[in-house]
């Protein structure tokens, strides 16, 4: 009997694992608004209320952060948008229509606000058309929040989410539900869907282009995160094959479980610390279970997405303290908010090129109040001396000295308030901008540790947008310029006697690990789900051989040569168990 092959879609394997579950189609953009009737008027009114409240919260968040940067004109627009949410005439009209017409609130919001935008569009003045866009923005925000509320109640557990793309706030939404896997039309290995899946230990296949077209709600889906393939409504043979694979996978997990308590070191005794990245608070159990030797990166902007507004000092302190206590005596590295770029603010600021714009340390130094609240919270959580602080997107020495000055200021304040903290708290920086890589010798003298953020470093070094499908092939971990830059950072860091870690996605790539250790990294910070496999790899290698391997890779001129060399090394040196698993 022939296997039907036309039900297989191929994409990029973004997070390992296999799952068999029903599809849940999440179409946020395309979803049209219908004039569905409702039966529960009170509930609809309440939903409208909470969508307005949520929109108000979001706008205030942007406003509080960006008011000085927006310019008077855009600040006025935000102010007016907040006022629209409280517009007595508009809101009471919508409420009355809900009561009378008994239609879903999103339909009536759309209908009522469109009356105004139609009037604006009818005007001959060009600025009226612009104004109409601003009103559209607020309309869409309210509708989005109305739908989100609905979506929350609609998300079922045990499904594979099928969507065109996932934004950071979507990922938080789904992280709360027990999702079995992610399939997206767009995005690459470093997309938010990919990163989230790896931290939640569920399989993901991204960049499938047609997934949302070909898959229907409720279809049975096999997602293979090793091979990067998705099977829609599998036949019996396909189902049987994958059930067998799932069994093998369980055996493999048990196998990896056996080395859980063994040290992470090479055969010839070189120790490489395996740390975990923390994205969402729900990961903590998993991090402890997989015996991470600390947390190399707490992505605080992600925690803050979970809270939907800037948590105050006390709230942040509680969060950081709880993480630090759970991992004690191991260390946690808290990275201060990396807001901007493609995280949290992009849509709202309308920057022409957000990845080259107001993000990371730039935004923090421009918002000293926000920054100092976070620094104080981190310091307060450091009283047991197992907390370090790290700054994102550093590109100049000024940014380091200014940040350190703010830390000193906070220390003085806390001392005066007689609050306990670690007076010698370790300070580190991310090396993720090429200028920082070039200047690493001088930068390293200012800090205790450095951590290489490969996602941004590669994107900026090669001038390739990691979220852009069209050029994603040019986003190459093994580009010789990347390998040589890593070598430079690591050697200069060692000369300055700082510890050098890596916390980007590259650190979790089994093919990259031998090279990275050969280049001399002291530790790797990866998704908790990757720790057992990476440890297995490290334990089956010889450091001396890896140093030779790294030196060989530094001589190549093309990505193809390096990639081929590393794959060859991997296939000959690393034990069969791992090989079989990755090959499927």
């Amino acid at each position, binding site marked *: 009997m022939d296997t039907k092959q036309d039900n297989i879609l191929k994409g990029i394997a973004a997070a390992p694992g296999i799952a068999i579950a029903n599809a849940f189609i999440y179409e946020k953009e395309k979803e049209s608004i219908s004039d569905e009737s409702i039966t529960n008027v009170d509930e609809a009114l309440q939903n409208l209320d909470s969508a307005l409240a949520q929109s108000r919260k979001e706008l205030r968040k942007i406003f509080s952060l960006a008011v000085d940067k927006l310019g*008077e*004109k855009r600040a*006025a*627009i935000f*102010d*007016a948008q907040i*006022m*629209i949410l409280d*517009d*007595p*005439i*508009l809101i009471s009209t919508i409420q009355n229509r809900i009561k009378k017409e008994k239609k879903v609130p999103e339909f009536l919001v759309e209908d009522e*606000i469109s009356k*105004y935008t139609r*009037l*604006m569009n009818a*005007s*001959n*003045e060009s*600025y*009226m058309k612009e*104004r109409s866009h*601003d*009103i559209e923005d607020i309309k869409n925000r309210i509708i989005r929040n109305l739908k989100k509320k609905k979506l929350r109640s609609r998300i079922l557990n045990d499904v594979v989410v099928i969507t065109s793309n996932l934004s950071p706030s979507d990922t938080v939404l789904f992280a709360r539900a027990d999702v079995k896997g992610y399939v997206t039309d767009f995005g690459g290995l470093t997309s938010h869907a990919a990163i989230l899946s790896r931290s939640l230990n569920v399989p993901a296949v991204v960049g499938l282009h047609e997934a949302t077209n070909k898959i229907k709600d409720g279809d049975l889906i096999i997602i293979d995160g090793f091979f990067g393939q998705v099977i829609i409504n599998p036949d019996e043979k396909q189902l049987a094959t994958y059930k067998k694979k799932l069994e093998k996978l369980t055996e493999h997990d048990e196998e990896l479980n056996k080395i859980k308590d063994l040290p992470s070191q090479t055969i010839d005794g070189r120790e490489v610390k395996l740390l975990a990245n923390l994205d969402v608070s729900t990961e903590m159990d998993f991090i402890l279970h997989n015996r991470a030797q600390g947390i190399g990166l707490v992505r605080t902007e992600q925690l803050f997405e979970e809270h939907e507004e800037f948590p105050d000092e006390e709230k942040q302190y509680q969060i950081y303290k709880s993480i630090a206590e759970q991992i004690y005596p191991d260390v946690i590295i808290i990275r201060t908010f990396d807001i901007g770029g493609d995280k949290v603010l992009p849509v709202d600021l309308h920057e022409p090129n957000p990845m080259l714009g107001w993000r990371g340390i730039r935004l923090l130094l421009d918002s000293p109040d926000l920054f100092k609240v976070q620094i104080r919270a981190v310091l307060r959580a450091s009283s047991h001396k197992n907390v370090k602080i790290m700054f994102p997107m550093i590109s100049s020495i000024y940014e380091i000295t200014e940040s350190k000055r703010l830390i000193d200021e906070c220390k003085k304040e806390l001392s005066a308030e007689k609050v306990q903290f670690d007076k010698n708290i370790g300070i580190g920086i991310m090396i993720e901008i090429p200028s920082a890589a070039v200047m690493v010798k001088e930068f390293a003298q200012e800090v205790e540790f450095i951590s290489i953020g490969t996602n941004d470093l590669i994107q900026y070094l090669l001038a390739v947008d990691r979220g852009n499908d069209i050029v994603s092939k040019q986003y190459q971990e093994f580009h010789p310029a990347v390998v040589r830059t890593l070598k430079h950072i690591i050697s200069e860091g060692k000369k300055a006697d700082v510890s050098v870690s890596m916390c980007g996605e590259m650190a979790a790539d089994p093919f990259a690990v031998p090279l990275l250790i050969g280049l001399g990294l002291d530790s790797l910070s990866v998704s908790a789900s990757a720790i057992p496999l990476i440890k297995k790899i490290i334990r089956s290698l010889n450091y001396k051989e890896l140093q030779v391997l790294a030196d060989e890779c530094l001589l190549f001129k093309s990505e193809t040569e390096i990639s081929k060399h590393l794959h060859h090394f991997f296939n000959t040196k690393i034990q069969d168990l791992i090989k079989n698993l990755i090959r499927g």
Partner: protein
Amino acid sequence: MIEKTVKIINNAGLHTRPAATIVKLASKFKSDFFLNKDGMHINGKSIIGVMTLAAEKGSEMVLSFDGPDESEAAEEIINYFNRGFDEM
């Protein structure tokens, strides 16, 4: 009821910032307040309504105030128009 014709005298016209200020001023008073222009009758306490008015420099509109504190409301809002929305 008080009715008064006012002229827009600032360069930028009735843009978003003054629209918001007008609504904020009007909301302090109990009286009803309407802006009438080009056949449109706009409630001055509704920001989205006021924003639908296109009023460039030199254009005119009729303001009407009706209620217990109509004279105070009229004085404050007409003054704001006459000051060119504090942009002169």
